[in-house]
């Protein structure tokens, strides 16, 4: 029972981190109908900016590296950069591609992904950098009285999951309670109707991409402090794709629950099925799982029902 629970908990926490990236996909897809392949590149870019600025700032004004002052300033700078990126993407790319088909937009975001990958590494360097925001690294034992040996939980992952949950709650509040959030939901429902009642589409898109940039930054910091900031961070986002299609492209709760399902399924399969197949099945298991879910529910678990009309 102990090892099973341990895997389950580990899966839930990894799943929470996947949800964090998936959230970025869903936000942008809802508001602009763009399937944003550049989310992974944005995570890498944001994490690189954060890591490097934290280093430069601590050296520039003489505060200790990894201290809260350097981190807070770096966070602010990185966020400003992500807003600038969002503004540029809207101005230079999406604004020019209004009314194009989904696949053209998808390709455009792939182009953006290549650009951001290249730009980030030209600007900030391509070594492995570390982000230290003070997440504790030591393990934690739970239920020591109930089981032999207890259940081992990584404290860092616990914090990360808490941050992710807080972020989701924050976004839900933002979407439900603020005027901007209401405008965002209106745009998501129907572009033309939203525009006709005076919601400025262009500004909404900049806001959505900035929010996605913010989510990317948080995801980048958490993943970055876990794995180090390096190019492979941009590939973590590929793991979020099955999460998105499993949960449904248009559903925020779907991204969370999809992430948890994928996280748990992946870890359990790796432990219990993996050895039979030669290991490393984590890479494709999530996709195959999502595929089977889709065969039953083509729109994902929480996606809007697809209705075809001739």
């Amino acid at each position, binding site marked *: 029972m102990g090892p099973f629970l341990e895997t389950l908990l580990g899966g839930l926490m990894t799943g929470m981190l996947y949800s964090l990236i998936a959230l970025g996909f869903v936000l942008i897809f809802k508001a602009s109908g763009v399937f944003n392949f550049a989310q992974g590149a944005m995570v890498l870019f944001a994490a690189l900016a954060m890591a490097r600025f934290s280093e430069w700032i601590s050296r520039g004004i003489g505060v200790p590296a990894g201290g809260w002052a350097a981190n807070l300033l770096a966070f602010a700078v990185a966020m400003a950069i992500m807003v600038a990126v969002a503004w540029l993407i809207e101005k230079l790319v999406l604004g020019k591609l209004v009314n194009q088909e989904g*696949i053209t937009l998808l390709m455009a975001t792939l182009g953006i*992904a290549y650009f951001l990958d290249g730009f980030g590494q030209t600007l900030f360097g391509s070594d492995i950098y570390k982000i230290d925001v003070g997440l504790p690294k030591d393990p934690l034992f739970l239920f020591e009285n109930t089981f032999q040996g207890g259940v081992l939980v990584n404290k860092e992952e616990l914090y990360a999951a808490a941050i992710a949950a807080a972020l989701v709650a924050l976004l839900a509040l933002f979407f439900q309670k603020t005027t901007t959030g209401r405008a965002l939901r209106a745009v998501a429902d129907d572009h033309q109707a939203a525009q006709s009642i005076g919601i400025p589409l262009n500004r909404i898109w900049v806001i959505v991409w900035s929010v996605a940039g913010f989510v990317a930054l948080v995801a980048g910091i958490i993943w970055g402090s876990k794995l180090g900031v390096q190019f492979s961070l941009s590939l973590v986002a590929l793991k979020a794709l099955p999460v998105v299609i499993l949960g449904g492209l248009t559903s925020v709760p779907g991204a969370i629950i999809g992430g948890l399902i994928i996280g748990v399924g992946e870890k359990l399969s790796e432990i219990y099925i993996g050895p039979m197949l030669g290991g490393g099945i984590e890479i494709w298991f999530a996709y195959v799982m999502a595929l089977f879910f889709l065969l039953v529910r083509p729109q994902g678990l929480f996606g809007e029902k697809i209705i075809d009309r001739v």
Partner: protein
Amino acid sequence: MLYRENGQFKTGYAEDQQIFPIRQDRIVILVLVAVAFLAVPLLANEYLLRAILIPFLILSLAALGLNVLVGYCGQISLGTGAFMAVGAYAAYNLQVRIDGTPLLVSLLFGGFCATVAGVVFGIPSLRIKGLYLAVATLAAQFFFDWAFLRIKWFTNYAASGSVAVADLSAFGLPVVTPVQKYLFCLSIVALCALLVKNLVRGHVGREWMAIRDMDVAAAVIGIRPVYAKLSAFAVSSFIVGIAGAMWGFVYLGSWEPSAFSIDRSFQLLFMVIIGGLGSIMGSFFGAAFIVVLPIVLDRLLPALGAGVGLHVDTATVSHVVLMIYGSLIVFFLIVEPHGLARLWSMGKEKLRLWPFPH
């Protein structure tokens, strides 16, 4: 003045239904084929053949296959690299396990195995559409990436994980020097292009296009979505599989699974979109653009850097190439979302009116 179809009367069905109904088109294509088969091998040097023309031909073949699926049948696939890999490894296994298999038989077997894989992974397309399908096809990509890396039987228990073939020959003729390889690729590409051209103007192609334009309406008028979608997946993966086998056998010689990674899938999709969806000519344009661009950038950037007195190291060059590549793709999508093939047909329209614009 030069390009005009008036005065060309058709007096029989055969004439009416030929591939190029306009005489000038026929002449241009004949000249093009003659140049490709005769002049290029004589004039091109080894570097041009090996580094540009052979990859260009093989990738245009793969793009052609993908175009059947995406451009003609409207089913987005991000797993093309995987189907190329299936073709390459199937052909390799036949070659290794049965001694003396002719090269062409191996290639066809690769195509056949890719067809089976394509149909299996195409089955979800009957229920899933659009972007959901695009992501679902990634399952094929990651599954085969993993399979060829981890299941040692496929790589014949090679210690390094990379497999190699040597001393190719077809019909008793060696396929070893760049010129021979080029001619071999060119023949296969020409044959496949002809095959696809005839398929898409027949009833199969019309069914695909009907499904692409609106699948519900197509089903209502009596087209079976199952047959149309799966046949598109089959034809597409067959061609992609052959292209994959050629990529491994003829171009690379020895390869690892990473030769057919997800980047390859994206690259092929770029070719199809930049070249033009639903256009055979477009597949070639797109492949030419994507193959030549990085080579040009690789050479141009250090020279440019030296010109302004900057030393550009290779890492920076590769990053800047990524940036330029990304922005050019976006630029092309904005300027001509229907691809280079649209520019081509606009050029032909202009030429028909030239020199009198009214």
